[in-house]
């Protein structure tokens, strides 16, 4: 049987719109140093490095090669994953495989994106080519605007509900010193006053472009027990991709195609004896590019019934103090360095399980948490974490 695998070190940068004080490699280095400090390890202890970054955002081909010194991968094995928005969990997934297989005892996962180097929306639009898909995408904004209008129509959610999700995200972000946008929003009305980016998606409904990095140190059971008395076990990982245009990406009104979230979570829950996700899991950090998406994702991850995602926010269930906290870090609505965004989801779940989330530690005791990533034309990657196996 494969080795058990745990997260033993967590580090992230402060996230900002612009980081003129550091180059891309130097920014990534901050997260690596933070993770090493957290695990009380030195770079010598790390055997391999797995990178997550999307080249077109910064216009750097083979960016991992440019930071071998700063990431500590110099003279070490590793490689880079680039599967769009899911990359940051996919890299953790590969590190998990390589440690579970016994090929390495201690591996580093490094997600990073320095969005001040380019135009994020343009880079996402460049997922299409002139041969197919031009006009299919106006970056992520267009996709999530359509998703929002669909969700509104389908579920009965209102713009007020979306605003409540944003308000929750901001309250959480204000308690998380690493979060990028900490706006101090006071009311739903304030959010409903923000202008539309693309109807019905408002500026405040959508995630920012952040510069930031997040590193995880992943170790075999033997090493994990030596390194820390608070290992966070990776119980399982799963990824599900989907053909780009079959289901109209983010809106399949006639329900002919299953959603990748549904397929991935069903598989993950089944393999891990989870029959009632809301009961068997204590919290989630999900990749929600918009507040509308958070409500919808709660449904397809089976945290609630279909078309009831908006009731979770209405009833306060997903708040930090709630029965099933979702994105107590402030989530992607507050912080979004894309290559690092999914890695941060894993990191935040691990902090919650350790009880080390500080001001944004959730009220309930977290023994099991799920981190998710969203990428491409609605691709999903998930990690299930546990305090004990």
């Amino acid at each position, binding site marked *: *049987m*494969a080795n058990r695998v745990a997260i033993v070190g967590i580090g992230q940068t402060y996230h900002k719109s612009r980081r003129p004080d550091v*180059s891309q490699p130097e920014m990534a280095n901050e997260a690596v140093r933070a993770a090493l400090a957290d695990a009380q390890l030195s770079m010598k202890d790390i055997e391999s*490095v797995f990178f997550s970054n*999307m*080249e*077109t*955002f910064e*216009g*750097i*081909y*083979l960016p*991992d*090669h*440019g*930071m*071998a*010194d700063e990431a500590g*991968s*110099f*003279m*070490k*094995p*590793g*490689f*880079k*994953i*680039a*599967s*769009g928005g899911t990359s940051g969990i*996919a890299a953790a*997934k*590969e590190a*998990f*495989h*390589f440690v*579970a*297989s*016994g*090929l390495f005892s201690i591996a580093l996962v490094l997600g990073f994106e320095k969005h001040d180097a380019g135009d994020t929306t343009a*880079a*996402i639009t*460049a*997922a*299409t*080519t002139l041969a*197919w898909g031009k006009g299919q995408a106006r970056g992520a904004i267009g996709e999530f605007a359509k998703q929002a209008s669909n969700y509104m129509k389908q579920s009965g959610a209102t713009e007020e509900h979306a605003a409540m999700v944003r308000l929750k995200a901001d309250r959480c972000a204000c308690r998380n010193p690493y979060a990028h946008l900490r706006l101090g929003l006071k009311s739903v009305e304030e959010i409903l006053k923000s202008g539309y980016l693309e109807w019905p998606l408002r500026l405040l409904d959508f995630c920012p472009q952040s510069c930031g990095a997040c590193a995880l140190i992943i170790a075999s059971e033997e090493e994990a027990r030596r390194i820390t008395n608070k290992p966070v076990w990776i119980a399982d990982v*799963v*990824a*599900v*991709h*989907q*053909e*780009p245009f*079959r289901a109209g990406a983010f809106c399949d009104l006639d329900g002919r195609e*299953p959603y990748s979230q549904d*397929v991935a979570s069903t598989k993950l829950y089944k393999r891990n004896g989870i029959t009632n996700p809301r009961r068997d899991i204590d919290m989630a950090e999900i990749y929600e590019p918009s507040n509308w998406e958070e409500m919808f994702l709660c449904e397809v991850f089976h945290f609630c019934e279909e078309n009831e995602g908006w009731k979770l926010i209405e009833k306060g269930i997903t708040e930090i103090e709630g029965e099933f906290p979702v994105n107590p870090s402030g989530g992607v609505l507050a912080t979004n360095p894309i290559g690092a965004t999914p890695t941060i989801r894993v990191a935040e779940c691990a902090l919650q399980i350790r009880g080390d989330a500080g001001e944004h530690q959730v009220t309930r005791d977290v023994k099991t948490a799920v981190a998710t990533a969203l*990428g*491409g*034309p609605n691709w999903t990657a998930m990690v299930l974490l546990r305090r004990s196996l």
Partner: protein
Amino acid sequence: MAERVAIVAAAQTKYHPDRSDVTEGELAYEAIEKVLQETGLTYADDGTGIDSSVTCSQDFWDGRTMSNLNIISYDGSHLSCEDKIAEDSTNAVYCAFGQILSGQHDIVLVVSHCKESQAEKSIIENAAFDPIFMRLLGFDFLTANALQATRYMYKYGVTAEQFAKVAVKNRGNAKNNPFAQEPMDITVGDVLRSKMLVDPIRLLDTKPTSDGACAMILAREEKARKLTAKPVWISGVSNCYETHYLGDRDLADCDALVSAARRAYDMAGITDPLREIDVAEISEEYSYQELLWMEGLGFCGRGEAGKLIDAGVTQMGGQLPVNPSGGMLSGNPTVVAGMARVAEAAQQLRGEAGDRQVPGAGVALTHGVTGFCGQHQCVVVLSNK
């Protein structure tokens, strides 16, 4: 490692200077269809079929963010598992190897594709150089590699004639390879008289623009034995990052390759590579690289590879035939090149390499490189026992 992992099928497209008749996905499917037909496998995650795929491509070459978007229908990962590696495709083999050993997957499809013809090489390669200190100088891989070639010649006395001999040997070998793009009957004189691109690298020291794809299926031992009578075992594999700045290291050496090879050999139990390895497929995007990488791979001492080519050690019939396929010089796209090496070696070890067969080959060395001057090196050792 209690478990072993085998390649149960491998296939390539014919490499071609311009495949603008097909999309990347259609190109990849030409190779994918062959391995599906050979094994009779379909995509299924219930333990009966392929349960994951690892793809390898580059956004910059495909001209689109998320280059794996192109091939979801073709690699079978619609509503199933796919991971995309963005290095040379030997690393995708390494990734699939790790996935199987971890117990997470049993049978993994590995696919790489690239159409160099659709993009501008120097612009893409220039974007790999640090934007603060190097990019504005106008480097591409050709110019950076020329710096490495000069240094290699200076430090060890390797000569342009010896580089040319590699170009002659590999293009000659390609005549026996139905997948090769540019088999050629040329002489050392032809190479030395070909157009000077970046001194000391001439046109025939470089590979042509190439389009193509490669696919293979990897499986854990128990499944592999049911799928094929001729499994090819991955007995050792590792990779390694080099430092980025050109002036940080002596370019005449390739420490990252030494390090990757050492780990792969340790895993495979190889102590004397020249004696224990029967055939090598080495990614030589430039002729000098075959010699330099052979040193890094421990087939000879530093600076001694020139003597091996002079002595005919690496030609067909020699002690260690290197690149019986014709190598990258005969035309493989970047990204795909490493898997092409692995696919070729797998054919050798199955005794199915036709006119380019190395008789009795039992252990093969394959190698992939990503970036300029060997920024990232990957070594895969294969065995048929």
